[in-house]
């Protein structure tokens, strides 16, 4: 009898854990409640922060916009090609993600260069091909100062700025931000930390399932 009780408790605990891992990923960023009237009743709905429309030049000198990411989940980060601090570490990790999802059309990667003066498409192309990225699944993009520092960084809640005190003049955080098909932020992971990037890949599976993009 005692054993049975123990067994039941253990079972409950175990299922509790598995239930938790099946939970949806959180939605990050700002949110505001909106009151709507549905069928004569007032209902409170929440509007979550979404990524604003954007247009950048990619490594093939083609303009890519938010439309290219419709119905896809994507990961985004900030870097520059001559950065020799955290960027190589981030992109060594990101390369694993790229390899894993190489043949999955529902996943994309978007890397913003913050070296707006020098990272022209030709340099981005050179960087991409030397990294071993040949498809447009992983876009390396260039934008204006305003669109990168004020819009993109704020959209994704990543700090990136120009700083004369830094030896390379540019400072940015190493977050990988996971964005869903509704352009909501669903996760932020330290791109320089291998374990967190592994966690991100697990979360991407979860998100693909949630979005019903996993079959194919």
């Amino acid at each position, binding site marked *: 009898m005692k054993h049975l009780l123990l067994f039941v408790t253990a079972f409950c605990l175990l299922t509790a854990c598995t239930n938790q891992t099946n939970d949806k990923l959180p939605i990050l960023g700002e949110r505001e409640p909106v009151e709507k009237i549905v069928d004569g009743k007032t209902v409170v709905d929440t509007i979550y922060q979404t990524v604003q429309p954007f247009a950048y030049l990619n490594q093939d000198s083609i303009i890519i916009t938010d439309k290219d990411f419709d119905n896809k989940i994507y990961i985004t980060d900030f870097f520059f*090609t*001559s950065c*020799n*601090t*955290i960027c*190589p*570490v981030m*992109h*060594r990790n990101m*390369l694993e993600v790229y390899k894993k999802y190489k043949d999955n059309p529902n996943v994309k990667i978007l890397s913003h260069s913050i*070296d707006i003066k*020098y990272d022209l498409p030709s*340099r981005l192309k*050179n*960087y991409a*091909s*030397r*990294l*071993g990225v040949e498809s447009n699944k992983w876009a390396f993009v260039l934008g204006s100062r305003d669109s990168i520092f004020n819009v993109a960084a704020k959209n994704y809640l990543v700090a990136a700025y120009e700083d004369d005190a830094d030896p390379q003049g540019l400072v940015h955080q190493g977050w990988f931000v996971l964005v869903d098909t509704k352009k909501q932020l669903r996760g932020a992971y330290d791109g320089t930390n291998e374990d967190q990037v592994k966690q991100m890949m697990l979360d991407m599976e979860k998100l693909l399932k949630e979005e019903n993009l996993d079959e194919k």
Partner: protein
Amino acid sequence: MRNKLLYTCAFLFSVMIIFQACSNELELNYQRYFVNGKGLYEKNCQNCHGPNGEGLGKLYPPLTDTLFLSKSKSALACIIKNGIGEKITASTPRSDNAMPGNAALANIDIAQIIVYITNSFGNKQGFYDQEQVADDLKGCD
């Protein structure tokens, strides 16, 4: 006769101890360089060349080419200290194919990094001390 044998044994034993002490010191120095070199590598080199010296695609070369390392061993100190490739100047503030120099590193640091690199990642090239670094640096372009 018996005494002579004992003396010989004692003599050989002391020679062995002296020899051991010397090689131990070399071994100890090697260990010291290697351990410090690992720390310096992690701080100065690892971001680009990777934790296992694997490099990153064609962006950053791997450090696993034993033949290259042994052939260009006397150039390694210059590369670490002064960088290699297109120099970064006011007119070319960014360079695609350059490794930045590390002028702040002392000879002993460079020697330790070289010992670590040339004895890790599948390389086994033994000790390299700071006097050799000083010599090699005289030959930099």
